[in-house]
């Protein structure tokens, strides 16, 4: 089965506001799917629904062939879902290495172990992950004092720690400089393709989106307004209108 994620008619409202309105899409293994849209379009809500933090009002989410209706985040994780957040969430009182070890401990279902010390557990595996995302030099720094870009990488390493089939990344490159952004996205593309992971990500940097995504879906006011390859979305007049704005549209036309 090549579909890691199937979303059908997903709907969620808060009070009177329909944050996600009848959204459907698919994601295949080894592919990067970008979800774009202006602020408040419902991207993060969509993520929180898929990852089990919120319950949908209607619609279905199927991950690796399993309906996840009513699953809590830790159950969704068990299906092989990694997640990074728009505002990074790491364990501030632990070092970079320990953060990843923690994720590995959970993956090996060892969170209730009371005999061995963490110091000796899964160090090599965790170092592998740190190398993969390129922060092995920071292994002993506390996460509380790390630069934002590095925290994003720690999160990525933790999200990869359960050998996920599906990776949900909410603005993976926010807070980074342009050079670091494209470097990180290169790395992510490489990782997901060798590991055959499906990625759903949001991003405000259009260069990143159009360079790295295989497909793009566009949300506006909670509705899916366009879907397709970067070229198709690029050419879509409606998207240019509502999302890129008039000035950007003019710039694109000149090309």
């Amino acid at each position: 089965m090549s579909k890691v994620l199937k979303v059908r008619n997903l709907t969620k409202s808060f009070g009177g506001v329909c944050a996600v309105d009848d959204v459907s899409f698919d994601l295949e293994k080894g592919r990067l799917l970008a979800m774009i849209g202006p602020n408040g379009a419902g991207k993060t809500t969509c993520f929180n629904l898929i990852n089990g933090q919120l319950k949908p009002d209607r619609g279905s989410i199927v991950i690796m062939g399993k309906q996840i209706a009513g699953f809590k985040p830790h159950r969704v994780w068990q299906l092989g879902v990694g997640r990074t957040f728009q505002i990074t969430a790491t364990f501030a009182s632990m070092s970079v290495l320990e953060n990843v070890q923690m994720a590995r401990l959970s993956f090996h279902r060892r969170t209730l172990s009371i005999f061995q010390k963490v110091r000796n557990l899964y160090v090599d595996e965790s170092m592998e992950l740190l190398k993969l995302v390129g922060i092995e030099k920071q292994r002993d720094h506390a996460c509380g004092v790390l630069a934002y870009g590095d925290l994003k990488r720690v999160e990525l390493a933790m999200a990869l720690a359960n050998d996920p089939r599906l990776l949900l990344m909410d603005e993976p490159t926010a807070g980074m400089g342009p050079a670091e952004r494209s470097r990180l996205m290169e790395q992510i593309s490489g990782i997901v393709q060798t590991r055959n992971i499906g990625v759903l990500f949001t991003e405000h940097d259009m260069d990143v989106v159009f360079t790295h995504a295989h497909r793009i879906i566009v949300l506006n006011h909670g509705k899916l307004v366009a879907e397709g390859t970067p070229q198709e979305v690029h050419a879509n007049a409606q998207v240019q209108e509502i999302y890129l704005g008039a000035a950007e549209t003019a710039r694109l036309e000149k090309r």
Partner: protein
Amino acid sequence: MGFYVAQFLTGWADASGLFMVAVGLTLIFGVMRIVNFAHGSFYMVGAYTAYYLIAWLPSDGVSFWIGVLLAALIVGIIGVIVEMLLLRRLYHAPELFLLMGTFGIILIIQDLSRWLFGAEDLLGPRCPGLDGSVWIMGSLMPQYDLALIVAALLILGAIWMVLNRTRWGVLVRAATEDREMLSALGVNQGRLFTGVFFLGSFLTGLGGALQLPKGGADLLMDLNVIASAFVVVVVGGMGSIPGAYLAALIISELTAFGILVLPQSTLVMMFLVMAVVLVIRPYGLFGKAELAPHEPAGESGAVLKPASVRLKWLGAALVLGIILAPLFAGDFQLVLLIEIAILALASMSLYFMMGPGGMVSFGHAAFFGGGAYAAALMVYHLQTPMELALLLTPLAVGLLALIIGWFCVRLSGVYLAMLTLAFAQICWSIVFQWEEFTGGDDGILSIWPSDWAESRIVFYYLTMVLCTGGILAMRHLLFTPFGYTMRACRDSALRSASIGIYQKRHQWFAFAVAGAFAGLAGGIYVFSKGSVFPDEMAISRSFDFLLMVLLGGVETLSGPIAGAAAFTWLHDQISRFEFWQLVLGCIFIILVVAFPQGIAGFFSSKTERYFSEPTDE
């Protein structure tokens, strides 16, 4: 029918009294996010001040009311002084230090009141013109009860007017919603806080003064009233004034009618209501979830480092000292050392829960006292030998903690803390009221160690082995996956969930582990003292443990030990003064202002370089 109406009115009058204490507390919490433990003390001062003012004023029709108002005003001014001199310095310190500061105030006010007002219970003056009773549907109702109902409604109305019809009130409501935004808009937060603290203190002073004709004044009022006030505030939703009124009404009516069905349930009822409400509506009837969950106790949360070689040497020296102590120490010092060890184990278990676990408990005495009672009951009713009792006690208390924890871990922060307090009060009430089984107020006597452990020195070594073992076991746990997962749950609920950790379940287990170790401490304690009384489960006991942990500092593993030692030593040193609570209170206040990281935290920041492994970077 008339009887039920009278019962209802009595309940309503009680509710009015409760509301008057709770309203200031909820106002202060809503705006300033301060859990003001000294609130009960202000209430007591209000009652005493009004008593003396009324006695001093020429007795005519209005002197009662003038006295009441003047007393409230004086309490308000005391509140302002406390806020400006102390609390203001602590707004940027961790929340727990504010708590400790307010503990200090409780102690100081307690002793000052004893000095100024005397230790005798005072019978309140009658209110002229309202000292009779009226017939209502065939039942006799005191007029003053009806006056209290009216007074509370007037206060509710007045506060509503102030909050909704004045500019100041709008600012207060805005601060309740979002403090930072308000100060970003250029509102002088300091002045607003002082104003709110004045109003809150004024209201509780008024409450204390107004209940004089019903309850008089005594020195136990402060702690007696604070638990009920907190329950009302939490059930109503912290920060919600109508919520406080409704909660006071529900609780008082249930108690008024509950007493008809189950006369022994009076003390438990209030806390049962709270437990039920918090399980159904975790943030109280009208409360809202905190938008930004406040920082856990571990604040910056230093990275946990394994003991360095030097620290191990220090530990070894400590163990050697413990082994050799009986050679030098007299009988009295051994007793003191035994007590320190037991309290260190108990406060380590509280630290375990508060620091790495991120769950602050205001009711740790439930587990300590629970352990003491579990062991004592086993010996008293079943003639269990000491060895078996000490083995079974942690298991029994662990089970108790599993039950209590199941409710508590659904909440976080102050709400969790309040729920632990409620459960501790339930346990205390059961022990206090179930005389046939627990001996009630008289306690359980003659619980002595087995013959082989009877001598002081043998019991000393036994205690040391168990307590050191328990402390080291908890320390070990913190370095294992179990302890790391606890810290993960504390640091970020979001991240824990998204790497597959079931946060609530893990916190539940951690809660039970902490409870079991506190139970062990209680078990040893009862054999060292030979008896147990409900006091071991009382709120003041829980406060003691909190003080020990805070005294030691919540960020250091050695904190609880230092805290317990310092607390016991201080207690012993100054309890020979007549006004030792005053001294203790001042010491706490100086400590929180001067050493916000606690004693051990202070020294470890000074000596960290010496005791940490050289890192090669």
